[in-house]
């Protein structure tokens, strides 16, 4: 281990140290605010540390780690999302009874797992990262253990995630048997000279798709999504939708591009099929959904369907489009779940669309945030979602993925319908239910989200520049 190694690992070190320190602090003096403050500081520190790594990249700590611009970019996104989730969690957790500080510890371990996925260059790190992330998520999902729904969501996620991990693992094993290496870069070299991929390898990739498809909630491995989103605490749902998916996407893109999956016809077709199915199933399921958390879950299925189109372009530009899409999707989803978690009380999770009826006339600003988020998800201009979709379609068309682009178009329209349903109910005549007041922290978070959506929607050039400059595999 050299100094450079340590330097390039500094975000991970911070993320690993933070939970330990929190644990020690808790054992001495249990205080919610202190833990929260420390968590925020640690994440910020981790983000700041990335700046110091920049000069030394790309840096590979063989065989597990590959710290390059791409991974740092993803880590930054993950950390910022985690920060926003922490902000949103503050109010949500504060109102809960009992022990709450552990939440932050687990949030750190899961964020660590997610960040590790971004730098993973090896099956072992892939596996460990994904398990660190997932195991932490079991706990986070079931965190409100007094609630039936939370526990139910937890056990469902646990069983399904374990099974998918088992598949993932089996697939890794088969690939390992075929080429004798677990390192992505070695696999790439091994594959480069083959005209035809061995069937066993394809079988392995197929099995890995189960694991990855599960994490990304792609059809047919999507069914857990609405249940878990609904049962989990709202900030955790947003965490699953963003950090967890983003991290898995990061490693999946890297893996997929390393094995050049887009060049293999059967993988290509399977991925396209999954993409198309995900779009249709996700959107169709959402159109009559009355529970807004489930609705967002279905929407996330569809969105991931859009996103994996980009895998098939097989170009760096495609990856950039995917990253842009992910960023906007992160912001938007966090905003939407943020609204839900800020409007939820101890007794009542604000998850029925009915409860949002007339929100605009009671809490206009919150409703506007939600409207912007939903419009962004639907891809309407002046929101970031529009530019993101534009970018995605642009790259998809460049690669000539016509069927996928057209099904994306059809689905955008279906999707628009249910986003509009929520918006409509927010703007219709108010009902009488009372809404909790929103803390300053929540307001700041939502304001940040909204401004980002607007800025990225109207003036996205700088971010695209940034991505083009930094997010190269």
């Amino acid at each position, binding site marked *: 281990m050299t100094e450079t190694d340590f330097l390039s690992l500094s975000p991970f070190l911070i993320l690993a140290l933070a939970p330990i320190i929190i644990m020690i602090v808790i054992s001495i003096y249990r205080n919610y605010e202190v833990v929260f403050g420390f968590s925020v500081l640690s994440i910020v520190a981790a983000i700041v540390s990335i700046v110091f790594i920049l000069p030394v990249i790309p840096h590979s700590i063989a065989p597990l780690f590959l710290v390059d611009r791409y991974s740092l970019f993803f880590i930054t996104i993950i950390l910022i999302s985690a920060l926003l989730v922490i902000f949103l969690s503050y109010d949500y957790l504060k109102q809960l009874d009992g022990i709450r500080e552990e939440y932050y510890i687990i949030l750190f371990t899961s964020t660590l797992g997610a960040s590790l996925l971004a730098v993973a260059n090896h099956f072992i790190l892939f596996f460990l990262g994904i398990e660190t992330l997932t195991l932490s998520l079991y706990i986070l999902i079931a965190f409100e253990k007094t609630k039936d729904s939370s526990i139910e969501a937890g056990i469902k996620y646990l069983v399904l995630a374990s099974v998918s991990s088992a598949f993932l693992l089996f697939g890794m094993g088969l690939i390992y048997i075929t080429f004798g290496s677990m390192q992505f870069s070695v696999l790439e070299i091994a594959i480069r000279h083959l005209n035809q991929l061995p069937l066993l390898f394809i079988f392995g990739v197929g099995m890995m798709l189960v694991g990855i498809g599960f994490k990304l909630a792609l059809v047919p491995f999507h069914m857990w999504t609405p249940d878990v989103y609904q049962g989990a605490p709202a900030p955790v749902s947003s965490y699953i939708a963003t950090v967890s998916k983003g991290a898995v996407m990061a490693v999946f893109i890297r893996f997929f591009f390393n094995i050049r999956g887009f060049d293999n016809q059967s993988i290509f077709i399977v991925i396209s099929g999954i993409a198309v199915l995900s779009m249709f199933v996700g959107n169709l399921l959402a159109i009559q959904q009355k529970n807004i958390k489930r609705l967002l879950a279905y929407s996330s299925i569809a969105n991931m369907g859009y996103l994996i189109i980009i895998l098939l372009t097989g170009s760096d530009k495609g990856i950039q489009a995917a990253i842009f899409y992910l960023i906007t999707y992160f912001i938007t989803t966090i905003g939407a779940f943020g609204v839900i978690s800020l409007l939820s009380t101890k007794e009542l999770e604000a998850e029925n669309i009915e409860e949002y009826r007339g929100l605009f006339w009671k809490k206009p600003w919150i409703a506007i945030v939600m409207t912007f988020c939903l419009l962004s998800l639907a891809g309407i*201009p002046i929101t970031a979602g529009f530019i993101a979709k534009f970018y995605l379609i642009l790259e998809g068309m460049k690669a000539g993925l016509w069927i996928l682009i057209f099904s994306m178009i059809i689905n955008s*329209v279906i999707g628009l319908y249910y986003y509009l349903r929520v918006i409509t109910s927010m703007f219709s005549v108010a009902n009488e239910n009372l809404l909790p007041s929103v803390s300053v922290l929540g307001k700041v978070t939502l304001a940040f989200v909204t401004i980002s959506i607007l800025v990225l929607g109207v*003036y996205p050039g700088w971010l695209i520049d940034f991505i083009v400059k930094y997010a190269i595999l």
Partner: protein
Amino acid sequence: MILIYLILILLAGALLAWISGNLNHVLPRVITLVTLIVDLVWLIIYLLQTVAFSNKWLIDVQHHWILQFGIGVHFALDGLSLLMLLLTFFLGIISVLISWKEINSRVGFFHFNLLLILAGIVGVFLSLDLFLFYFFWELMLVPMYFLIGIWGHENRTKAAYKFFLYTQASGLLMFISILALYFVHGNSTGIYTFDYIQLLGTHMSASTGLLIMSGFLAAFLVKLPVVPLHNWLPDAHTEAPTAGSLILAALLLKTGAYGLLRFIVPLFPIASSSFAPIGMILGVIGILYGAKLAFAQTDLKRLIAYTSVSHMGFVILGVFSFNELAYQGVVIQMIAHGISTGALFIMAGQLSERIHTRDINKMGGLWEKAPFMGAIGLIFSMASLGLPGLGNFIAELLILLGAFKSNVLMSVLACIGLIAATLYSLRILQKVFYGVKNTDWKMNDLSIREKTIAVSLVIVIAGLGFYPQPVFNIAKPALLKTLDEHNEKTQLNSENLKVETDLKSKLYFYK
């Protein structure tokens, strides 16, 4: 810069109106009115300063936006867009005035949406960057959706969905086409840009041209609308509040027509020529089918909505005739239809404000109590059936003449639409104004405000009917440019084809 300011003023006015809505109900109205008047006056002052309309852009503003994709902020004004802007601001003012009493809830937000829609429309009329164009094209949907969805009538939600989904679906197809054009141009020249002027000369094969054009067509034909893509329109028009119906009919539909003239014809000269017969058939079907449905309706607003379908059929008929007569007719039709159908919607709104029904079977005998309204209704029904002396006649005459030049049969069939128009227009009058009055209604004739609106509309429509020349003069250079652009290419193409076939035959010979 005036062009950007025009939009910015609208946006600023929108925000102000919204915020002031919290203070009281009059302020947003006044602010909106002032905003629109400022824009209108500014534009008129500009118009008066412009000595001659040449075939260059009158104003051309260009800035970078998203460099990576070759997207710029490119606004430009020519005669065509100038006319459309004038119409937009004028009807914008009218729509504020008609909502003065009708809208009493959430006044601030209403006017916010109103101005936002207008900003979107102005943007559409001015954009010369295809991405920017699409941006504005979509932008106007959201506030319109709110306008229908919040202040509309009973089935507003459904109508609002239908409107949004329909236009969004077609818009996305256009978006794909815009991108395809972008790539075709980029691949052949190496310059990836969304700029209209650069894209004008794009070379593409006939089949590619048709495919790309069909995406544009989808969007424009839905907006226009053309049978069988018209179903959003009756619902949206019927359920929207009066101002919404007015803007929909008078302005939003025109963006479709504008798009045809501005984009389809010059960008796809060859493809549009080959599409022309189908386009004309669609136009005729629209004219006749729209009229047929209008005749069958009992809901007044729905009836008027279907007349829009019928009238817009003339527009597409004209656009695909490719000659100056028809194009001037299209321009006049855009304005005249905006005024006349708008006026009819206003009348329908005023009626339902008074008697709380839109069912024409329940109306009747209103002439007795509201002769002024009756007179207005009469004038605009007559306009809608194409009575000479009113603007619509000029429009229909020129379009039919133009169409006659290129396709006699279609033009003759379209003439049947004139008879059909008589049927439904007279039905409105008969059902609403003739007969005996229902005694339960407390019916007042028009107030001063309403009279002012009505009279100003009458003046415009009659002015167009008797002295349309200024409009022709303004629009002429722009239309001629469009036609030249189109004709040049089609001729070139036919020459190319000739050369190609020559070459082929020679090659065959040498084999």
